[in-house]
């Protein structure tokens, strides 16, 4: 029972990956196929989760929407992680003006609250999925840079790192072979939570019309379309939201479990 949250989180993440990978086979219909005679149908036998204002099958759109979410989450986290790790490790290892300069840049990025910078950037770059990813990466590397720098600052004073330096290892080797592999635990936990953040951010930007553009199905744009019909067809609003909630909840639970494991405690999240 103590491990239930971790199992649940893992199962949800596995379901997300499977749903994204097998979407063309799992979806009962073409997510873009319009059937105006079947518009706004409630959930039923023909369409398990109903249809939207253009008669498109909601279940198929939710399944295909998982592809967008997973794609944004993976690319954003991978790119942000690479940039943040590079900046943070160089800043932490070199110190001096390199560290000072890098951290002042980080401070400026941190002065933009939450999703604001991503909204501003997608507003000027134009609404598209790739601009969303670009904006989220520009916003996302900062957290990793700060975290990695802190970890490197701690690690570089440890005896095994000093020994490696005393043996004549180059800075690159000390960093790549001895420091980075040992600071990667907290970064992995941060990356897990960042995936949930990226999914919510993409959905939020698509909700505002700045992200994924029609007819590509995205959970955020489905919610925005559903909002217009909330009085007559509330199911349009419910299902994409359930998909986002379950995905984010699952990833957060997995992140909590990973964090507890890194700390060496089996204590469930939040305790």
């Amino acid at each position, binding site marked *: 029972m103590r491990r239930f949250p971790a199992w649940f989180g893992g199962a949800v993440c596995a379901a997300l990956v499977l749903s994204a990978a097998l979407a063309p086979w799992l979806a009962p219909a073409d997510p873009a196929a319009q059937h105006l005679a079947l518009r706004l149908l409630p959930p039923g036998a023909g369409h398990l989760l109903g249809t939207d204002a253009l008669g498109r099958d909601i279940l198929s759109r939710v399944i295909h929407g998982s592809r967008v979410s997973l794609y944004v989450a993976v690319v954003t986290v991978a790119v942000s992680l690479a940039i943040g790790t590079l900046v943070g490790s160089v800043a932490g290892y070199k110190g001096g003006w390199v560290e000072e300069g890098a951290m*002042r*840049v980080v*401070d*400026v990025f941190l*002065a*933009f*609250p*939450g*999703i*604001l*910078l991503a*909204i*501003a*950037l997608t*507003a*000027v*770059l*134009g609404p598209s999925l790739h601009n969303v990813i670009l904006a989220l990466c520009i916003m996302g590397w900062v957290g990793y840079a700060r975290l990695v720098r802190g970890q490197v600052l701690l690690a570089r004073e440890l005896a095994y790192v000093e020994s490696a330096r005393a043996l004549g290892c180059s800075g690159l080797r000390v960093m790549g072979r001895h420091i980075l592999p040992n600071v990667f635990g907290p970064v992995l936990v941060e990356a897990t939570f960042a995936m*949930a953040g990226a999914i*919510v951010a993409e*959905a*939020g930007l698509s*909700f*505002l*019309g*700045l992200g994924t553009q029609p007819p590509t199905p995205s959970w*955020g744009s489905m*919610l925005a379309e*559903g*909002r217009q019909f*909330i*009085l007559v067809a*509330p199911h349009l*609003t*419910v299902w*994409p*939201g359930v998909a*986002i*909630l379950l995905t*984010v*909840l699952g990833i*957060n*639970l997995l992140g909590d479990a990973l964090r507890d494991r890194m700390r060496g405690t089996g204590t469930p*999240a*939040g*305790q």
Partner: protein
Amino acid sequence: MGTFLIRRLFMLIPVLLGVLTAVFMLIHLIPGDPVEVMLGEQALTADRAQLRAEMGLDDPLAVQYARFLAGAVTGDLGTSLHSGRPVWRMVAERVPATLGLTVAAMVVAIGVALPLGLVCAVRAGRALDHGAMVAALVGVSMPNFWLGPLLILVFSVNLGWLPLGGAEEPLAFVLPALTLGTAMAAILTRMVRASLLEVMDREFVRTAVAKGLPRWRVMVRHVLANALIPVITVIGLQFGALLAGAIITETIFSWPGLGRLTVEAIQTRDYPLVQGCVLMICLGYLLASLLTDLCYAAADPRVRLR
């Protein structure tokens, strides 16, 4: 405390300069000709030339930057492309509505998190604690652009208790404040509980209990006073998240605040207004961070000595 304040204000200067630079660069990041994007492809050449001259886009970048900085310091952020009104005035008019909503959301969050976190810590490991922690996790994971429409569906459409949107009556605050404050309430509840549990385990608390002090007095005088110090920081940081979250919440509830103005400006490609809105939200966030640091320093003298 005076030295701490001066040091903190001094540290703010490069960050402010960085924020102003980033906001200035927004217009220059527009792919292609920004004037064409703002006025549309069908715009007359004369109109384009006029806008270009008005915005000084033909000047060297350094000159534009210096003019932007001078304008930002004196409160001149240009004029809105659509209304023709000064951007600073349009932004300032919307601040009270956003501030009111943000404060209401914070009241919701703190009002829920403090008592719930306290009860969970006191009854850690019991059914109530587990239930509250599951609810907190769901609250953290629930995006406000879904929660808002759901609350409208239940309380406005089905029950008819609360208005669908707008800010004309006091009841109109309820749903937007709940939408904006729920995630913060969930984060704070977890934080308050974890912080209380950590402090309750300290030796000075055991000493207070061993001295025979009443339980409530130990909790209020010794545990809460120490446990709430890190919570202050989280509240301050979350204030910024609320300001950004207000953009979506205000859009859902047609709330006449800064967030809705930002979205309207984006939709009409009124980039000087977008710049003004972004700058104002950032300034609000920086001010909240400063106030948080000051509160933290006032509550914990060790912070002032660092």
